[in-house]
């Protein structure tokens, strides 16, 4: 057993209260001093642990409720986070009812869904919550029975005294336990003692999902609630000039139509603020259908917006250019940028000399388009503004990050904002940007009624906040023996660079140069499952495949060679990845896919591996091409995300990542002409469908004792290059520009 210490005594954060019907409610807030530590060093490694909280409710009938603090969008934290508590609490998982916690920064300081950090950040704090509660129950039992704690044991929610044969449920002691002081020293189980963690558990919300129960933001309704939509400019780079709502207001069921400004003109844009169009026209009515119809009758005149300057939190202005942009022109601009010197992000050795002395240079340019998130549940928020208070029911990934903007725009103190966290019908980064909540609140305030704001699918697809448009050019220099002597990565995008300068193969090559550039744009972008990595991996892992072929090396062997160098004698001081874990997933995928085995010689297969969000993933994809049709026969995924809390949920995530990656690699793209998106809905935006999904997906986890690292995002980025590399084997043609399928000849 590992002993960890808490420091509750100095800053008390345990809130214990007896429930009216008997039983116990336990909540622990975690701040700087309340973090469980094994050594002082650890404090310096991951200080973010400070921000986790949990609740436990134990009823006198021994039923147990465990609150999951993090917003749920399908990553299954509603199951995995309560599992962490239940393990240390030592209760039967069947006794436990998991419940979504609402936004409550005092009780739950870290309610953050993004960056694949949910389980990672909760790993020790939530287990400590469970262990603390167990210890208090043991103390209460010891007092009730007048027996020493050391003679008592727990199992499945029961306290037992083996010598006397006494055994009672946690529920018996819950009320007494709730009145006890918080234990000072908390002992966590060693990994080898886990009985629940590491066992496959089904999604706790599954029964409600299959019955269509109202779980999602869009499902929320209450008496007197009105429906609202917003009419916005038809193109990026346009703004409202004038409008006439006379005809629209006469439509049935319409309550009011008025313009709203999403952010104040002098708003300082924080990380998750974004605005595609700051002034929009709100249409409010008695049903979705009424509002949809009236919207069409709003006569708005739009004009090209002038260049604007947006102020960031750091008081640095960002230019939003004027003009109606087209993706065709963006691609031409990106090629121009590639010819100019970029901003040097990293330089090792003497790459210029390497290229000057090279006997052979391979240079390839890769691109990937804008992507819409296409969350299946369209953007929405319920808001009810009364006096100086606002109450939300909304799907939102990172509620805490929206509070400062709400305070600024709505002019109310943060204490007056309450948010019920609705289950999200997908997120993928899109729902980190909660401007729609501000919109809903402003509309509710104007009409003095509860309002549900709904984006139509067309609003979501054409309304911005996309995965950026990216380009990366790689150059590799070789000597006369085909030895790799220098490497150059130069990447940029509209309006963000994808480059991760300190990631592999940086650290493995003596002469290395990474440069970046950006093209400003008025098209808004957002985090999209594994931001930047989702393109970096595609480009880099395709390029490594191509140069390994030139060198006459097996693509896995070549990567392992580079990683061995990075492990044993790394170049440079800052390399973001752990070469051993990177090698581990490549070795595992090689073994599990039967890579290089004679029986697989006829397969058209591609390999790829990547590191992001603290985890390592590798894939081998087998596919066939007939005309312009791609059939993916099998995906073999190897994943190192440390200890796997719930293998069933984890596998589902990795399978989904494979399908998501294949779909976007083959079909996904959002293009624009004169500021308007060419795709508006799923009839034109090509999504992967049932008949295009892989026939088989195998997921294998590296078994180790490393504390959990990211899971939702890491298995996604490498898929793109595994597809490209397999397509090369199937067609003899290299694919550099996503999406790939339109380039196949029918």
């Amino acid at each position: 057993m590992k002993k960890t210490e808490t420091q509750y005594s100095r800053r008390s954060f345990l809130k214990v209260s007896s429930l009216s019907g008997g039983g116990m409610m336990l909540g622990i807030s975690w701040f700087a001093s309340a973090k469980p530590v094994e050594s002082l060093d650890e404090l310096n490694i991951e200080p973010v642990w400070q921000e986790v909280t949990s609740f436990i409710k134990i009823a006198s009938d021994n039923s147990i409720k465990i609150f999951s603090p993090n917003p749920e969008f399908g990553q299954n934290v509603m199951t995995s986070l309560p599992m962490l508590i239940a393990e240390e609490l030592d209760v039967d998982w069947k006794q436990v009812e998991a419940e979504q916690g609402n936004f409550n920064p005092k009780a739950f300081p870290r309610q953050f869904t993004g960056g694949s950090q949910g389980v990672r950040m909760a790993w020790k704090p939530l287990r400590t919550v469970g262990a603390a509660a167990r210890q208090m129950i043991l103390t209460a039992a010891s007092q009730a029975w007048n027996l020493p704690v050391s003679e008592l044991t727990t199992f499945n929610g029961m306290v037992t005294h083996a010598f006397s044969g006494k055994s009672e449920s946690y529920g018996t002691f819950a009320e007494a336990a709730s009145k006890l002081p918080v234990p000072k020293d908390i002992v966590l189980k060693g990994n080898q003692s886990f009985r629940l963690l590491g066992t496959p558990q089904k999604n706790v919300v599954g029964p409600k999902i299959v019955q269509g129960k109202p779980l999602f933001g869009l499902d929320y309704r209450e008496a007197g609630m009105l429906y609202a939509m917003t009419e916005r400019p038809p193109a990026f780079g346009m703004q409202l000039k004038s409008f006439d709502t006379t005809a629209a207001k006469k439509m049935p069921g319409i309550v009011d139509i008025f313009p709203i400004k999403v952010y104040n003109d002098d708003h300082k844009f924080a990380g998750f603020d974004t605005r595609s169009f700051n002034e929009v026209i709100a249409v409010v009515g008695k049903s979705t259908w009424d509002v949809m119809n009236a919207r069409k009758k709003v006569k708005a005149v739009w004009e090209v917006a002038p260049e604007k300057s947006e102020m960031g939190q750091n008081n640095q202005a960002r230019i939003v250019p004027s003009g109606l942009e087209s993706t065709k022109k963006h691609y031409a601009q990106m090629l121009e940028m590639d010819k100019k010197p970029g901003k040097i992000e990293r330089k090792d050795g003497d790459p210029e000399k390497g290229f000057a002395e090279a006997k052979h240079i391979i240079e390839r340019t890769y691109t990937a388009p804008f992507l819409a998130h296409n969350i299946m549940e369209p953007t929405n928020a319920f808001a009810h503004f009364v006096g100086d208070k606002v109450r939300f029911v909304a799907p939102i990934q990172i509620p805490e990050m929206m509070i400062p903007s709400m305070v600024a725009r709505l002019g109310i103190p943060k204490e007056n904002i309450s948010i019920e966290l609705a289950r999200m019908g997908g997120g993928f980064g899109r729902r980190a940007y909660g401007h729609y909540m501000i919109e809903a609140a402003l509309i509710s305030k104007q009409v003095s009624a509860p309002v549900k704001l709904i984006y139509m699918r067309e609003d979501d697809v054409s309304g911005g906040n996309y995965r950026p448009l990216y380009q990366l050019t790689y150059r590799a220099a070789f000597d006369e023996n085909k030895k790799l002597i220098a490497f150059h990565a130069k990447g940029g995008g509209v309006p963000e660079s994808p480059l991760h300068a300190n990631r592999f193969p940086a650290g493995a090559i003596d002469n290395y140069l990474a440069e970046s550039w950006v093209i400003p744009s008025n098209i808004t972008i957002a985090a999209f499952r594994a931001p930047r990595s989702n393109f970096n991996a595609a480009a880099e892992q395709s390029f490594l495949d191509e140069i390994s072929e030139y060198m006459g090396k097996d693509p896995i062997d070549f990567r392992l060679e580079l990683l061995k160098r990075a492990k044993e004698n790394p170049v440079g001081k800052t390399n973001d990845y752990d070469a051993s874990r990177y090698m581990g997933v490549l070795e595992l995928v090689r073994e599990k896919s039967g890579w290089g085995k004679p029986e697989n010689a006829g397969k058209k297969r591609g390999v790829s591996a990547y590191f992001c969000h603290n985890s390592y993933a590798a894939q081998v994809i087998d596919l066939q091409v007939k005309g312009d049709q791609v059939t993916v026969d099998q995906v073999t995924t190897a994943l190192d995300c440390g200890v796997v809390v719930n293998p069933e949920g984890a596998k589902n995530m990795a399978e989904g990542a494979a399908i998501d990656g294949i779909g976007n690699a083959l079909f996904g793209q959002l293009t624009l002409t004169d500021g308007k998106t060419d795709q508006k809905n799923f009839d034109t935006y090509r999504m992967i469908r049932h008949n295009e999904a892989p026939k088989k997906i195998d997921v294998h986890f590296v078994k180790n004792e490393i504390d959990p690292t990211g899971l939702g995002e890491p298995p996604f980025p490498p898929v793109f290059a595994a597809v490209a590399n397999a397509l090369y084997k199937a067609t003899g043609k290299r694919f550099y520009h996503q999406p790939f399928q339109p380039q196949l000849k029918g």
Partner: protein
Amino acid sequence: MIKKYSVRINKKVHQVEADENMPLLWVIRDILGMEGTKYGCGVGSCGACTVHLNGSAVRSCQLPISSLTGMEITTIEGLSAKGDHPVQKAWLDVDVAQCGYCQSGQIMSAAALLKSTPNPTEEDIENFMTGNICRCGTYTRIKKAIQQAAAKS
């Protein structure tokens, strides 16, 4: 034009007043308050709003209320009394859902498929289910669940 309609949903007759062009989807959700049938695209391209019309899978966003006289409609809420339809049971057994938003529609499509084709081939499943998008990528689990439901029923 607002008219009175009588619609039979989940074996109950509901009297509703609605615009004649209002799609069944919004009648079910906004007027009758049943939220299991989901809005995904409104153009019949994603399958989130799938219901049964006289036993066949249809997209409720494409059916105006005025076209439903005398029809028998089933929504996810009426598929089984306790969520124990073989397809729902298989869905839980295979642990299909991630976000879960599209799954009502997927389940309604799958149930209709098995009604018309009790022992579907893989290709039957792929073709029939192609109209139902899952953004989370649960397609392989959905296929497995349908095969399992077929084997058990």
